[in-house]
């Protein structure tokens, strides 16, 4: 069994900065940006991308469905 490496892509303009993905990531990958998007919301991004396992927990709980998850086994 190899190790899972993951990455997420957030639709920044549709993110509402609710923080729900942040607290549900088991490996503390996500944080909210200091800048805001066109609607005035801070948006989720990978602050610690090396920790992402592609588990998709963040995407499952994102109310707005704006997270895509990618995963490879290395």
């Amino acid at each position, binding site marked *: 069994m190899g190790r899972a*490496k*993951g*990455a997420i*892509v957030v639709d920044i303009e*549709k993110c*509402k*900065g*609710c*923080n*729900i993905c942040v*607290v*549900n990531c088991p490996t503390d990958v996500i944080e909210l940006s200091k800048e805001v998007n066109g609607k005035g*919301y801070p948006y989720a991004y*990978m602050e610690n*991308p090396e920790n992402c396992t*592609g588990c*998709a*927990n963040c*995407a*499952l*709980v*994102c*109310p*707005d*469905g*704006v*997270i*895509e*998850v*990618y*995963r*490879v086994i*290395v």
Partner: protein
Amino acid sequence: MDIKDIIKPENKVYSKTSLMTDNALSYCPGCGHGTAHRIVMEVIEEMGIAHDTIGVAPVGCSVLAYDFMDIDMTQAAHGRAPAVATGIKRLWPDKFVFTYQGDGDLAAIGTAETIHACNRGENIVIIFVNNGIYGMTGGQMAPTTLGGMKSSTSPFGRDIGTMGNPIKMTELVANLPGVYFASRQAVHKPSNVRKAKKAIRQAFENQKEKKGLSIVEIVSNCNSGWKMAPVQSNIWMEENMFPYYPLGDIKVDDVILGK
């Protein structure tokens, strides 16, 4: 490994179902309605029944559900979704028919429609999003508002003595013989999302087998109405809503559990 080597189409493991439109959801940041919508659409996609399913949207924050769910839908007057769904299902018994309703819709103004559709055992699915408040109209008390809980019409907290006890609609209708399956779930954490989706799948499978009515309650947050930040509202929900509205199956295969 470079991130751009991970983010490739062949490595994609999750993105929202195409049965959710690309319209931005009208819900407040962090509101559970969006997740509830998405898992209903995922179930419909996974069952391959998108072209054979008709949804009935309610009055409430989810009144525009038809803008977000890319299947055939209609919208009923406040509380009347189970009656409208009854008519649709009886005209088209081979279609999958579901309602999507809030607690003000299902447990207040629509109590009669809910109870009688359940009692008749209409072969439909009811998705019941219980956030203990009237979200859309500004956080008024609902029949489901907890004892002591503040709302804009119970600013000192719901007084059980004068305002009655919060009503457990799913337990109530589970007692009716027409209800084949009743379950209570949540969508604020990954494990809950998975369980809620499983319950919704079971509900639609029951409809396929013509078993009668299946109801899945989703205890959810209304961070705006509760006047809390989204994450805080989910913690409050776990500490206050779940003890009164415990999660899990209530009636399975026509049998009330724990009786």
